């Protein structure tokens, strides 16, 4: 009986955090960005799971990737789809909410509740759109630090992030060295490769060549949806792999058609669906902002050597690369750890077999989950 119950109401499963409600922290002071610009106030939306212990030593910070958000576990009331990392986070799961207090904020510049281009600029009464300052990974982390100060958290047991989230946790261990105990970097890079910048540029071009683009000053209900959907379709391919797509769809056909623009293959249908659903939850200006934040992220710096950035790091670090990930491939993750090891830091590198490309860091495998559990323990 109880199994049928959890099937219908998965938030009641013993390893689920259950129904969750997002929180907002309104910071009424100015925030200065890396590029020198500032906004007068900002809101940061976040979710927390589990309980902060007495000595405030069990906090885990989750940093989300480009298209992610603060809702990484449990269910929102009335919804049947859980948060994006629900397989990883919950009571008894690798990020165990019966032991840890998990915090996941929506990134600065985002469009899911934290102040970003689609938010109203209090000075003009209109959305910021293109007037929103250029965001860097460092700016995102600075805003997260303000949230943690507000929550009374002075020590993070671990900062965890994949992809763009991995960049943020690296920034954390550099900028707030003394605060971070452990850092878990998943499928990430210390510097966006030229190929990745190239892919992002195709996505950005699709957006600003959309007839509704209007130089970023579009009506919220009539944005550059076609461009954004195409950007997402193409980016989505970079998150997967040839083998992954092959085994998921093969050359299966949805229908035979004479019309060249109709959906014919299953994979086409899948990508169009990905594009469409993305448009409903994402803002084009945020997409431009975040892809630029990714592209300009470069811990190698002017001396072209990661060791300068990592000089003062004190955290214990684990990076995991996934064999089939060709967006942030194993060697880019390996290089992060090699640089840390050359400096004598406490760092480890593991490499996992996977079929599904970059998105492998979101999928459950025993080896992967055991590793995460062991590292956080």
């Amino acid at each position, binding site marked *: 009986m109880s199994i049928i119950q959890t099937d219908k109401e998965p938030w009641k499963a013993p390893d689920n955090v259950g129904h969750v409600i997002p929180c907002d922290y309104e910071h009424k002071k100015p925030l200065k960005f890396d590029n020198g610009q500032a906004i007068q106030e900002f809101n940061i939306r976040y979710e927390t799971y589990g309980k902060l212990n007495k000595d405030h030593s069990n906090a885990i910070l989750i940093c989300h990737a480009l298209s992610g958000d603060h809702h990484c576990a449990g269910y929102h009331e009335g919804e049947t789809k859980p948060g994006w990392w629900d397989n990883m986070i919950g009571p008894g799961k690798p990020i165990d909410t019966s032991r840890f207090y998990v915090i996941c904020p929506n990134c600065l510049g985002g469009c899911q509740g934290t102040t970003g281009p689609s938010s109203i600029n209090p000075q003009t009464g209109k959305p910021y759109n293109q007037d929103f300052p250029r965001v860097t990974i460092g700016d995102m982390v600075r805003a997260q630090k303000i949230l943690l100060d507000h929550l009374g958290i002075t020590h993070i047991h671990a900062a965890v992030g994949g992809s763009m989230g991995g960049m943020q946790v690296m920034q954390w261990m550099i900028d707030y060295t003394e605060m971070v105990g452990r850092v878990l970097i998943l499928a990430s890079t210390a510097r966006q490769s030229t190929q990745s910048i190239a892919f992002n540029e195709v996505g950005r071009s699709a957006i600003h060549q959309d007839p509704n683009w209007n130089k970023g000053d579009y009506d919220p209900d009539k944005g550059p949806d076609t461009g954004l959907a195409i950007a997402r379709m193409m980016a989505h391919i970079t998150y997967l792999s040839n083998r992954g797509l092959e085994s998921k769809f093969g050359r299966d056909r949805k229908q035979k058609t004479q019309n060249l623009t109709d959906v014919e293959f299953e994979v086409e249908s899948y990508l169009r669906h990905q594009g469409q659903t993305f448009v409903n939850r994402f803002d084009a200006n945020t997409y431009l902002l975040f892809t630029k934040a990714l592209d300009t992220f470069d811990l190698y710096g002017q001396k072209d050597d990661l060791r300068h950035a990592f000089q003062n790091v004190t955290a*214990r670090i*684990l990076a995991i690369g996934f064999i089939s990930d060709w967006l942030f491939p194993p060697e880019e993750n390996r290089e992060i*750890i*090699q640089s840390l090891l050359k400096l004598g830091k*406490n760092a*480890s*590198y593991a*490499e996992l*077999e996977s079929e599904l490309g970059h998105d492998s860091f979101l999928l459950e495998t025993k080896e992967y989950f055991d590793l995460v559990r062991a*590292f956080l323990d």
Partner: protein
Amino acid sequence: MVESRKEEAKRRTDQMVINQGIQPGDKVLDLGCGRGSLLQLLIQEKQVRALGVDINPGKILECVKKGIPVFQGDVDLFLGNFPNQSFDRVILSRTVEHLQKPGRTISEALRVGRRVTVGFINHGFWLNRMNYFLKGSRTINDVYPDPWYESAPVTFFSLANFEDFCRKKNIRIHARVCLDANWKNECRILPNLLAGYVICDISK
């Protein structure tokens, strides 16, 4: 391959010998660290700053569980990336026989480490010779339990081979400990014939 309990017991003496050569607080690199049991011992006994390298993901997990820094990957690729004399001690414990190019890896280990410990099975051991002489066949025992067609490629070499290599490459052997057939007690006479296991402390 799961190590049998018997083999684990054998390795204990080996680890104790290696431990004796380590200075407290040394920076130690264990190439082919397996599940990290040697490094764990060295951390407990000598508070070393440990780092392990292994290619097997299951063994990496065991090291992470023990909290030992570990790098998953090929030993040669890893060494090539490191500056000279980065470690006080580099350990190759039963690793050399699995290497693609043992000579190259040992000289790389001598480059990144001030001192190198090499522990290896002596294939000049009399029983191995007897098996070849009488049966014309390789020894099957606890350490090599699998028939040839089911085991990974292994380079067999003897103590005499190793010492000859060191002479040719101008490698100094500072200390040498030879263990008997059960890797338990020290073997002092005719080691190339009677020793089952050898541990050498070397440098350039």
